[in-house]
Each structure stands twice: as C-alpha cells, then as structure tokens.
C-alpha cells in the first residue's frame, strides 16, 4: 500500500506532505485497501502513472447515464394498452431494447434547469432524429469514454493521445496551456495537468451538438468538463468528469465510472469508421433510384 502512495521516483515529498499521506493511510477505507491488492501501477520514466493501453467502460452507461430500468426500445410509439417500440426499430426485437443501468451520476440525477430538462425530454422523444451517434458524428467528451467501444491511450513523457474506436475520434491532450480555444470543435480542446498521480484534464471549446448518452442528455457550448483520470492498479482506471454548464444545469455535477484494461496480449484497437454505415440513412433518398420508399 505504501508503494502506491510513495512510488513516484524523482519527486521529493516534503515532511508535511508525508504527514498528510500518513493521515490518509490511517483513514484509508476498505475500498482503498482493496485497491492496493490489485498491484502496483505502471509508471513512465518520469514517475508519472503510465496510462498506455486499451481501455473500456463496462456497463450500460452509454444508453443512459442516469439510473434506469430496462425498457423495450429507445424509440417508442403509443400502443392500445401500453407504449410499444416505434416502427423504425421494431424489427430489432430484444436486440434493440435498452438494458438497465444503475447510473454513473453522483447523487443519481442530472441537475437540469427546467427549460433544459424540457429539451432533454424532447430529445428523448425524437431520439432517432437527434442522437448524434445515430449519424456517426464525433461523440465529444465525456461520452467518448464510456461508449460501448474501447479506446487506446498512447502516453509518453511528452504526449497523451487518445484514439477512440468509435468513429475514429481522437484527442491530443496538451501538456502546455494553449489558452482559450481558438475554435469550437466536436472533441473540444483538452489541456492536462497532474495532481499527484491523477491526470486532470480541462476540456473546453466543445460544440453544443454532442450528447452524454442515447437518452437525450445534452449540454450547451459553454460546458467545461474537468476530467480526473486515476489509476487504481495496473488494469483499472477510475474516471471522473465534473460538468459545469450554467446555461443547462443548476450546479456542477460529476460522473464517475471505472475503466478496465483489455488484458488480451493480442488486443488491438479495432476500426469503427461508421461513416459508410450511415450513408443509406442520411443520403439514401438522394439516390437516382432510391431503394426504399420515402416515409410519410
């Protein structure tokens, strides 16, 4: 356990800091004790935790980051007795059903302002038209980190780069403060600093068109995401993201989700370049000879 706290070679720890750490150790929860049994975290030559590897979240957070029960489908229509899956997704049967999830939002729910909550509900109602994932658009942050597909971190003493399998999205997390973003973008601008062994990334300059999940949860262009990446052991990262967006939420709120390393020695990041997969959906009606009849 001591090694976890003191294992950063090349960095001196003052007496006061040692006192704080000892206090932390004495107060360590059972959870932290379990953490230490997972093994030492790998480190780079500069003593920083080594985040290299293929990582993924496990769970159903990508469907809905709030606590939710399983439901028949994301797109529904009125039925004679209860709502039933919408025609557009009916053929998928149970494959198109939403699995339950306990949520990853601290405190359970997202603190929407009333008008933003109404937009969320409308998004949910019109999911098929509005979810950017359906059109294979870049996912934004934090959504990219807990989707159903993994991502690979390339981490060296001078770079921290994330390549996501979904849509080939990328983030180059800058180690030097770039100042305010010069232009808004889908994946935003990321600037990372270290707080001890935690990599803290401030993400700004994101467009307002990305969502948090498939359940219509949204934000404005003012959103600032502060991510905290902490290795719990060689194969586990605790990922936290605090969302600040006064145009959408009544207060900052935080998500927390563990990430797991793909320990298969043959693991490779797959490609999910999904643009060609959605061409029929997006442009099919513009074919010279459309293969489906326009709806309505």
């Amino acid at each position, binding site marked *: 356990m001591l090694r976890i706290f003191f294992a950063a070679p090349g960095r001196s720890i003052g007496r006061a800091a040692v006192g704080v750490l000892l206090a932390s150790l004495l107060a360590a929860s059972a959870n932290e004790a379990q953490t230490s049994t997972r093994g030492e975290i790998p480190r780079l030559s500069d003593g920083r935790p080594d985040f290299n590897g293929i990582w993924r979240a496990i769970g159903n957070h990508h469907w809905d980051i709030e606590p939710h029960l399983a439901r028949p489908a994301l797109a529904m229509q009125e039925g004679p007795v209860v709502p039933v899956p919408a025609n557009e997704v009916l053929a998928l049967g149970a494959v198109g059903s939403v699995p339950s999830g306990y949520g990853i939002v601290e405190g359970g729910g997202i603190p929407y302002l009333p008008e933003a909550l109404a937009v969320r509900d409308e998004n949910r109602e019109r999911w098929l038209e509005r979810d950017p994932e359906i059109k294979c658009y870049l996912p934004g942050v934090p959504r990219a980190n807990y989707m159903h597909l993994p991502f690979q971190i390339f*981490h*060296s003493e001078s770079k921290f780069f994330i390549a996501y399998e979904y849509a080939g*999205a990328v983030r180059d997390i800058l180690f030097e403060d770039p100042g305010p973003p010069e232009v808004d*973008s889908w994946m935003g601008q990321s600037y990372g600093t270290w707080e001890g062994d935690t990599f803290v990334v401030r993400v700004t300059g994101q467009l307002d068109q990305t969502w948090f999940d498939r359940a219509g949860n949204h934000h404005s262009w003012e959103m600032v995401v502060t991510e905290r990446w902490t290795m719990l052991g060689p194969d586990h990262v605790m990922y936290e993201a605090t969302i600040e967006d006064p145009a959408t939420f009544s207060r900052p709120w935080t998500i927390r989700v563990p990430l797991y390393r793909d320990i298969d020695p043959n693991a490779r990041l797959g*490609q999910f370049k999904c643009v*060609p997969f959605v061409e029929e959906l997006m442009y099919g009606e513009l*074919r010279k*000879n459309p293969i489906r009849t326009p709806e309505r």
Partner: protein
Amino acid sequence: MRTHRIPPLVAAAALLLGPAIALAQTGDGPVPRTPDGKPDLQGNWSNATMTMVQRPQGLAKVLTPEQVAAMEGERQEFIEERSQDSDPNREAPPVGGEYTGNPLFDAASGGTGGYNLFYIDAGDRVARWRGEPRSSLITIPEDGRIPGLTTAGREHAAAVAATRGEAEPYDNPENRPLAERCMLSFGSNAGPPMLPNYFYNNNYTIVQTPDHVMIMTEMVHDVRVIPIGAKPDLPDDYRPWFGVSWGHWEGDTFVIETTNISPEQLAYYGQIYGGGVGNPIITERLTRVSENSLEYEFMIEDPETYTSAYGGQVPFIRLPERVYEYACHEANYALFNVLSGARAQEREATGGNEDR
C-alpha cells in the same frame, strides 16, 4: 503552415556544402531521443511539398538551382496574387465557372471561388532530400515513375473501371470518391504510403511509446496504430483501412511493414496501388535526422500488379503549430448537395419541377 522562402544564394550554398551547412543555416538541432534511447519521432509534422509523386517528363532526379527558383518563384507569385483582397464589387463568376488555369486552384474552387487561397496549403517548396532538390517523390525505379502493370494488373484495372462505369458518378453516395464521403484522408495522405495531398492539411501527429507508434493524419483524423513486434496472425481477408501494420527498430530507423489494405482503398488510390489486384506489402522507414527533420522512405511490393517494386523518399518537416480537428462527415454538405444537385438536373432534363 507555410515555410519561409530561403534566398537562392543560401539554398545554392546548402546544396553545395551539404546537410551540415543546411542545419547550421536553419538553426536545426540534434536528434532528440526518448528516455529509452530511441530517436524521438514524436510531435507534429508536415510533408507538404510542390514535388509531385511521379517525375514529370524531361526532368532529371535532381532539379537545377534555376529549375528550383523557377518552380518556387512561380508558386510564390501565384500565392501573392491570390492573397490579395477580393474586389467587393466583382461580378458573379460566369455560368460554368471561371478557371485560372492552375490545376490545384481550379480543382479546389471548381471555378466558382469555392475555396480561395486562404484555405489552401499545398506546399510552396520543392522536396529537398538531404539538401538535394527533387523532381519526384518516387526514386525507385530510376525514372521516378510508377512501373507498368502486369497482365493481371491491367485486367483488374479494366474490370474495376468497368464496374465503376455501370453507374453514373452522381447516382449513389458510394459512387463518390472516398475523400468526398469523409471516409478517408485525401489522396494517399494516411497511406501507406503517407504522401502529400497537394491541397491542404498535410499534417501528422506522431506519438511513440516503447511498444507502439501512433500516427494520426490531420485529414479526417485517420489513425494508424503500429505495434512493435512480429506480424500479427490474421487471415488474408481481414482488410481494414490502412491495412495491418507492425513495426521494429533497425538501429535509429523505425521500420513499418503493412499488408491487408482494404480493397476499397486499393481500388480508390488507383495511381498508388494500381487498382490493387493483390495484397501489396508496403515497407516504410522513419528516421529522425535532426530537430526539425524526419526522413520518410517507402517501398511498395505487389508483383501481381506491378512489373517491379517501387518506392520513394519524402521529407517530413517539423510543424511548430497545433493540429486542429478535421471533422468532415459532421458537416458534409458537399455530398448532400452533389447528390441532390444531380437529382435536380435530372428533373430539369425530364421537365419535372417537383421539389425534393
């Protein structure tokens, strides 16, 4: 990014006295290394250049100082002319567009002013390999040209052309080029081989760890992941975009080998892959030679398609700037407009006038 022009006298001196002088003139530094002692390939790089992939007829491998001055001077004049403020009172371009005669610019603007020079960064210098100004990026074979096709290669190329001829180019999204569909970077930007697109954003980000090299191409954020180690055991029909790559160090050179490139990519980059009848093996060599320079060499072996192997040398210059997000598909109005424009033309031709 645009590189600054070097006065001809300095360029000539660098040419005569060799790379050491060139380094001194540009203030270039020694090869940085990673903590494990390997040359550090990391950072942002550009391979923008005026030097074309294949050697134009009549030129030798190495350009004379006069040829360099003429080529770069002409490009500079074009850049300066096109960088002038637009006349706010200018008329609309004539029906059918107004072409400048410059193929680069006309391809970008379609004669309608679609892109002005602000958006274009096609390179304003010829490629210099160890101080030698080059007339082509291809150096093997000696004539600087892609070798001829084998009989099988010709037959395959003809078959691909015939398949494409079944549909008009505007009938379906799948008939449009991969770049226009935002599926892959332009030209053979991501490769392999990684070549300039002669248009814009010829930029790359490289990250290196003890067991991986990752190369991201700015265009369409194409990522190549190259694990260091043996060739992975994958079936021949596992054909991802950019193929399956693996790498190793040979002294200070990082060598990448690639096979199993997607057939769609092979067919699309017809000039580079000859239509891709087979499964080419591409070998790339990356050597950092100074603070600001990375030497990139490639070799394509595809005996089913080409009568001989071919390869080339491309200088990568350090890009002291950030690489920005090239989100393409998310606002691909072009593909929508190309297809809907074709449908509108068809309705006009048949006298129909209903809106779509």
